[in-house]
């Protein structure tokens, strides 16, 4: 089996979020980048587990610049066999999906894994777009995935519960909590990652469909009003009369 895992970078979850250049650009000063948690914890680890059980290869793909190589090495240290980087800024989900779909078409994979969403843009877009471009089924928000030959049984989150679905390879799946347990890379993995292949390819021509024009921050909260723990009648009154939420 051949597995392709889409790996993107995300600012460390404790990063301070602000913007520069007239609020048109994310301020990267002092920001530490990590592998997007959904890609690392769930998509990559489940692909590795399937490979360990049934044989095959796990390739990662990232649309990004040379600055992304360190997070790609982390994915290799966790256990991916080889990595591909499409050498371009990933500013638009359609552009990103197009690059990944082109690579997948040329190389043929049984399952393409993405994360549920990137924690910076939260679009949940790239996986579904890749599926459409490949003409393959898309299973969104999988919390469990088992493979028996070419038939996968997947738990997918749906409104109001969980759906257990069957789908044949090849397909695209976006990975959510529950799919796997986070793996911490060990020293051997980190050493091995240094010499694993990281192929850099140039992007195919593709137009962007959207652009982020500007950013803004939410309005600051006014100071917290304290209520004594034995005066819940006052809290209820505030929630009703002042906040008007009950």
């Amino acid at each position: 089996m051949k597995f392709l895992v889409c790996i993107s970078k995300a600012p460390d979850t404790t990063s301070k979020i602000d913007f520069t250049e007239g609020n048109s650009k994310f301020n990267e000063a002092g920001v530490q980048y990590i592998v997007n948690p959904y890609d690392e914890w769930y998509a990559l680890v489940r692909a590795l587990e399937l490979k360990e059980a049934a044989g095959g290869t796990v390739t990662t793909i990232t649309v990004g610049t040379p600055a992304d190589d360190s997070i790609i090495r982390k994915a290799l240290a966790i256990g991916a066999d080889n990595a591909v980087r499409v050498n371009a800024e990933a500013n638009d989900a359609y552009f990103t999906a197009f690059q990944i779909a082109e690579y997948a078409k040329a190389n043929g994979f049984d399952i393409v894994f993405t994360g549920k969403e990137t924690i910076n843009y939260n679009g949940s877009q790239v996986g579904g777009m890749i599926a459409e471009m490949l003409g393959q089924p898309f299973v969104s928000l999988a919390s469990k995935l088992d493979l028996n030959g070419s038939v996968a049984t997947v738990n997918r989150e749906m409104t109001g519960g969980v759906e257990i679905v069957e789908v044949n390879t090849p397909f695209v799946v976006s990975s959510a909590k529950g799919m796997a347990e986070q793996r911490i890379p060990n020293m051997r993995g980190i050493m091995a990652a240094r010499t694993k292949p990281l192929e850099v390819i140039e992007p195919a021509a593709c137009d962007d469909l959207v652009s982020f024009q500007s950013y803004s921050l939410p309005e600051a909260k006014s100071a917290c009003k304290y209520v004594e723990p034995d005066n819940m009648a006052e809290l209820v009154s505030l929630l009703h009369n002042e906040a008007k939420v009950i």
Partner: protein
Amino acid sequence: MSVLVYIDTLNGSIAKNALEAVHYGSKIGTTTVVTNGSIGEAELAGLGNVGASKVLVHRGVTTGDAAQITNIVAAAAEAEGASTIVFSQDLTGRSVAPRLSAKLKAGLASGAVALPAADGSVKVNVFSGKAFGNVAFKSDKKIIALTPNSIQVGETGGSASVEEFSADAGAASVVVKDVQKQEGDILLPEAELVVSAGRGLKGPENWGMVEDLAKALGAATACSRPVADIGWRPHHEHVGQTGVAIRPNLYIAAGISGAIQHLAGVNGSKVIVVINTDPEAPFFKAADYGIVGDAFEVLPKLKEEIEKFKSQN
């Protein structure tokens, strides 16, 4: 301008976030709704009350297969000449909107929190609710996926015409074997009131207090991530950066420290109440109302006062 709104009615009813999406569409232009499944005609006609002119219902697709729904919505957009297509950013929207975007080469603004601005750009949630971005479209066709609970639904008193719609949906590629319904009547992503608790509650046996307060309020229950990780509560209740992001009117957090990753999923809430024994807990900085106290005493008292209030109002 002609607008098409897809709503998910697969569980047999029209959820609040679907009404929001329809109303949102009607603020942009003349709105046709498209849906699939077996929901009744009278209920669909009622969508006129929130702004729909027409409803197209496809009876042939009764599951959430993203490829089939994409085909239906694309056919409806073509039939209606719609240049803007609206989804709710719910679980079905998250899988269908991106497929449709690729199929139609239509830009997708997901996580919208407001109507399009005069220049057509759309304000969306980014950085897990810690900031907003303005998405500008470069394509002629546009898709907008609306964050639940981000607009107020207004009633117009109108009624919509309902038509059966029979576009070719293609074959189902994903076969549904079983469905496990979530317990509880109020679904977290669309709940207006939420009671949430964290590790401060010490163990799963203490969640009775949380559920009792939620019941008294008519609220959904939620939890912090470690609580779901250790198995005290089901995964779908986990809110935050790596869980569900919610924007209820009221979020009550008991025994939750307020780590930045937790706040990311809840700071869109209109009003936040924090109950914590530690006056230095970071959550108080994000709170509207704070109670420095023991959740084991405060939650039952609050429940009592809510019941009193409900019986008088």
